[in-house]
């Protein structure tokens, strides 16, 4: 640790009483609270912080903000490591660890820097040309290219932090907490509007923090403090600092990314690390400021070349001298303020180099007073020094030829401050679909026509003077509040400010080098795109900005062209001989700066990735050691394995117990719809293909419903509960779609029917009790329902008390056994289930899961989604006789379509392997001859397959062309995916108890 040799003796907004220790590239340094990593490194004299993307050239710190293209670092280690963060935005905290990226073995000695020597061989687009052939080698090339060109390293461990989302609804959203934004917030806040203000940095004040302007005759920071204090007292104003407005979407929806604990050494686990805000704003005020443009000249990427405004910010805001001896190179007035401030901070300004021949005497007088020289009509043609600027070459500039002239003069310096003018930050404006226009005076794009309810104000609107910013801010805030419905008369009077320099600029897009002068002129520092690369793109026909971007990678990366775009397209405009607006800009895309995936994900990860839907008996299944399977959002018990059992053994045991004794399965997820009304029966009669008008009270009927196109939609049972009162069940998967379907018909198609639908899926816990001993067990748990075959025959419905709970009892069966379905209010579900399990223990009851349930229904040829697959008709599935001929129902008219009545339609059949042993592959294709060369005509497909523990051989269901006519024939089930082919015999789909004796017994 040394004493921060480049720290000024006093001044800045850092807290000198609070030193912080941090590590960069393994070395320990000291900075102060209020520093960024960049300012703390500069205070320690560290300029070399990274290596460039392609040529691995040494790079330093160019800027002091979000626009930084060079100083990308990897912070922290292990699971919390994060790549590609801009050192200029990282708040210093005690113990911060950061390192350079894209260099090996170290940032000072990077072997890949040899790329620079071969740079003539790898110009823009070289990989498109070089790695095109042989094309199958691309997979090998890709690894090498990615390794050579990659930036930071993504963490490989799970993210230990948590994140969250927040929704906000503002009357006025102000983006930017500089003078303009604060003034706008003040105006809107005083009008009583709900205001949300987002500021990217830690501190409020924006560019005022970096300057030394005065407001109301006092330092601007005093005014900022006063405004922030007033805003903080306003109940309806929410101030979000450390919050980047990342994206502007339709309907004035703006996404903000708030860094909640990133700046803390040890994070408070109760707080999220970051918060993603989705703000729906009635009105938006954009006060996003402007970004200074660098200049394009030879070796303009060397560490020590810095934006003039950044050097000024380091001096004024952080008390850091970015060098000892500086040269300022500019084409506009703003850099003169930087020159004076740097000089005041103790940096020797060798000279100001201004491309313009005529410079306002006010500026020159100011320099003279500070003892600074100025070379007008001159440019910096090149930089010497590799890991740090050591000197620059200066030449006169001939504006008619746009080339340097005469003899170069060498000027010693370790800091070169550059200013090529300012680009208003129009990214969000453009994202909102606002149209931008090119302003010749500013030589920059400014907002033109708004598309949404927003307005730009201040620097981002091209108003580069502080007085204008404050005025525009006040007006924009007032206008926004009025548009949002608040009455607030005229805008508050903007405060007076000190003298300001006029704005004046002479565009300078490229400084071509004198002959024999070697080196690179970078347009895009982050992507290593040079001015000759732009020329190459032009030469090869990639002249549209969009092509230019793809061909050269200009404007890509984390930087997204904030620094480079305007220079790049101005050079292209020059090459094409057209005006800059003709070339246009590439599309500004969200996010403005990268957002972590964690923030985008929010809480929806791990156990909250999707919500879990649990039945009332869920905890019982957990305790019983069930394995679970998702069914939609439900987690259903799949199988209850016992110690020492294989999965298949457990499934087989459960399925056998139902056929031999009794089993119980949780069927709560079945869709249940309460249907009431005077026309309820008529409604059902129109929905189902079979009759429901004559269903007596106390009876259950199986029903099949079709889609409008005649294809089977869903099946289930419907029970006549009481007069004008029915309950329908649907398949678990179709519970939602069936409800929607019924609601649509009830409200839109048949509004004349008096029918009311309510989902009661969650109201009732459902359990199916199945097996020869089920009646005996039921007798033991109810004493007010007569469950004898006479009193409660197949398809009967009864109500009463089961295990002490009010219950609905349905004598229905999915398994084909004597079976009952019990519904109890869900709050009773757990206790009733437990009671029945206890009572059933002497009978050998076994709980069974969805796997055994599936086997039982395949054995019975009952269809589920594999068979009701959106392509099968009632006839295909063997429900043809259910189709009523005496009434109308949904889908009936489509049944006359020829295609639905073709001979050769695929029909439901059963399959048994010919050898009685080999499992029939799921999803296999049915063919007549497995050896036939493709295309082999496909006769059908396997829809369900299992091993039947009751029959002791595999069975399957399939849909096969003309299947019912092929019973007894031998075909082949072929699965090219698993490379299996099984000879199968076609059978009736009902494998067990076709006479239904068990069912009705």
């Amino acid at each position: 640790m040394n004493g921060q040799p480049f720290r000024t003796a006093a001044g800045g907004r850092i807290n000198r009483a609070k030193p912080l220790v941090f590590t960069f590239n393994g070395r320990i340094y000291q900075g102060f609270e209020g520093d960024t990593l960049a300012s703390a490194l500069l205070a320690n004299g560290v300029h070399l912080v990274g290596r460039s993307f392609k040529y691995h050239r040494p790079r330093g710190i160019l800027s002091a903000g979000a626009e930084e293209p060079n100083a990308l670092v990897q912070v922290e280690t292990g699971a919390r490591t994060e790549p590609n963060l801009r050192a200029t935005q990282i708040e210093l905290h005690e113990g911060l660890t950061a390192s350079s990226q894209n260099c090996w073995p170290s940032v000072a000695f990077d072997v890949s820097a040899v790329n620079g020597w071969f740079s003539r061989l790898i110009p823009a687009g070289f990989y498109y040309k070089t790695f095109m052939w042989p094309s199958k080698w691309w997979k090998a090339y890709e690894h090498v290219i990615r390794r050579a060109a990659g930036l930071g390293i993504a963490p490989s461990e799970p993210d230990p932090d948590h994140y969250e989302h927040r929704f906000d609804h503002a009357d006025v959203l102000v983006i930017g907490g500089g003078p303009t934004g604060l003034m706008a917030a003040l105006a809107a806040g005083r009008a009583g509007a709900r205001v949300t203000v987002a500021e990217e940095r830690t501190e409020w004040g924006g560019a005022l923090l970096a300057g030394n302007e005065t407001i109301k005759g006092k330092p601007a920071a005093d005014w900022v403090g006063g405004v922030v204090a007033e805003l903080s007292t306003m109940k309806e104003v929410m101030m979000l600092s450390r919050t980047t407005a990342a994206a502007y979407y339709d309907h004035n929806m703006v996404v903000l990314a708030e860094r909640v604990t990133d700046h803390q050494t040890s994070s408070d686990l109760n707080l999220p690390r970051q918060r993603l805000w989705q703000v729906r704003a009635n009105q938006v005020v954009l006060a996003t400021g402007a970004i200074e443009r660098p200049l394009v000249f030879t070796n303009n990427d060397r560490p020590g070349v810095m934006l003039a405004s950044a050097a000024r910010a380091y001096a004024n805001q952080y008390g850091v001298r970015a060098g000892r001896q500086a040269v300022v190179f500019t084409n506009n007035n703003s850099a003169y303020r930087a020159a004076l401030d740097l000089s005041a901070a103790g940096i020797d300004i060798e000279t100001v180099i201004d491309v313009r021949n005529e410079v306002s005497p006010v500026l020159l007088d100011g320099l003279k007073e500070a003892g600074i020289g100025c070379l007008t009509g001159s440019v910096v043609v090149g930089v010497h020094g590799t890991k740090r600027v050591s000197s620059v070459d200066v030449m006169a500039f001939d504006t008619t030829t746009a080339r340097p002239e005469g003899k170069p003069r060498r000027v010693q310096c370790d800091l070169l401050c550059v200013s090529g003018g300012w680009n208003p930050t129009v990214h969000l404006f453009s994202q909102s679909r606002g149209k931008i226009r090119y302003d010749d005076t500013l030589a920059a794009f400014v907002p033109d026509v708004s598309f949404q309810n927003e307005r730009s104000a201040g620097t981002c609107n091209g108003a580069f003077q502080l007085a204008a910013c404050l005025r525009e801010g006040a007006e924009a805030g007032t206008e926004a509040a009025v548009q949002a419905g608040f009455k607030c008369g005229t805008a508050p009077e903007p405060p007076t400010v000190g003298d300001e320099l006029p704005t004046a600029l002479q565009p300078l897009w490229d400084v071509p080098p004198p002959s024999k002068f070697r080196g690179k002129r970078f347009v895009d520092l982050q992507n290593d795109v040079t001015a000759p690369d732009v020329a190459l793109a032009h030469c090869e026909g990639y002249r549209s900005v969009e092509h230019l971007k793809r061909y050269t990678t200009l404007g890509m990366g984390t930087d997204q062209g904030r620094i480079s775009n305007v220079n790049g397209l101005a050079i292209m405009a020059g090459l094409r001989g057209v005006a800059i607006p003709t070339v246009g800009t590439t599309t500004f895309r969200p996010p403005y700066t990268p957002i972590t995936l964690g923030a985008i994900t929010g809480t929806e990860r791990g156990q909250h990735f999707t919500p879990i839907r649990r039945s009332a008996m869920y905890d019982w299944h957990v305790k019983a050691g069930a394995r679970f399977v998702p069914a939609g959002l439900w987690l259903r018990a799949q199988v209850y394995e016992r110690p020492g059992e294989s999965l298949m053994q457990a499934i087989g045991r459960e399925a056998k117990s139902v056929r031999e004794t009794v089993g119980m399965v949780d069927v709560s997820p079945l869709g249940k719809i309460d249907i009431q009304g005077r026309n309820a029966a008529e409604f059902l009669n129109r929905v189902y293909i079979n009759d429901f008008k004559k269903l007596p009270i106390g009876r259950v009927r199986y029903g099949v419903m079709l889609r409008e196109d005649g294809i089977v939609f869903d099946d289930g049972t419907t029970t006549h509960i009481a007069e004008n009162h029915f309950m329908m069940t649907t398949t678990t998967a179709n519970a939602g779609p069936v409800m929607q379907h019924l609601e649509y018909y009830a409200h839109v198609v048949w509004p004349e029917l008096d029918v009311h639908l309510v989902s009661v899926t969650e109201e009732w816990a459902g359990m199916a009790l199945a097996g020869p001993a089920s009646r005996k067990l039921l007798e033991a748990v109810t004493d007010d329902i007569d469950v004898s075959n006479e009193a409660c025959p197949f398809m009967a419905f009864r109500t009463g008390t089961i295990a002490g709970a009010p219950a609905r009892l349905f004598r229905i069966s999915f398994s084909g056994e004597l079976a009952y379905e019990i519904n109890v209010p869900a709050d009773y579900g757990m206790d009733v289930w437990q009671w029945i399990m206890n009572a059933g223990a002497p009978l050998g009851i076994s709980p069974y899961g969805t796997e055994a349930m599936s086997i039982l229904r395949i054995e019975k040829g009952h269809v589920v989604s594999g068979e009701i697959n959106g392509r099968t008709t009632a006839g295909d599935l063997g429900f043809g006789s259910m189709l009523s001929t005496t009434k109308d129902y949904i889908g009936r008219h489509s049944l006359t379509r020829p295609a639905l009545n073709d001979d050769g339609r695929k029909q439901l059949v059963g399959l048994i392997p010919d050898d009685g042993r080999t499992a029939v592959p799921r999803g296999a294709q049915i063919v007549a001859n497995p050896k036939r060369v493709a295309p082999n005509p496909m006769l059908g497909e396997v829809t369900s397959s299992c091993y039947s523990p009751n029959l002791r051989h595999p069975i399957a269901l399939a849909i096969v062309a003309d299947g019912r006519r092929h019973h007894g024939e031998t075909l082949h089930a072929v699965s090219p995916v698993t490379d299996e082919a099984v000879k199968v015999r076609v059978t009736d789909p009902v494998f067990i108890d076709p006479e239904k004796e068990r069912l009705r017994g």
Partner: protein
Amino acid sequence: MDSTLAKKRSALVAAYLPGIYGAIGEDGPGIMLVERCDLNVVHIAGDATDQAFAHAVKTETGCPLPTEANTATVSSECTVLWLAPDRWLVVSARHGEGLLKERFRMSLASGSAALTDVSNGHTVIQISGARVRELLAKGAPIDLHPSVFGPDQCAGTNLLQISVLLHCVETNVFHVYVARGFAQSLWEWLTEGAAEFGYRVDPTD
């Protein structure tokens, strides 16, 4: 048979632990949570323009039928929440299971209305405290500002990916109606989100 065999169990039974959690500030917990097991919830459907129906609702609940979208009416023993055109939830502190429903059935027998007990299908979580709106705004995309969503207003929305019905009972007191099956997932999400405000879980009875 012993009729006291089966007892009612809350959907939150595995996750519900009364106590104080999270970052408790000087003002105490910012959020208070309690499951309202005492509330009966009945879904009613009927014709809002039918005077007899509206009269029956008023008679049985003491509440005028709310016909404006997303509003609730309250009486000493009942709350009627607007759900959708011609649909409401009637909520009352439990005074005999199904009693409300039976009384209703009697007085509505002649009309076209339908009553369905959905008490078991809904879990009602009461969330109160100074930070209640901030907590809900972590998952609900609707505007929860008191000027927009104040007492006696209700809305169907979602928290995380879970559909809920929010009812603002008092300025800083909300009832969240959630389908029973999702109650535990929602509870876990709510309590994690409430940690930064400090929260207290109260016993249910």
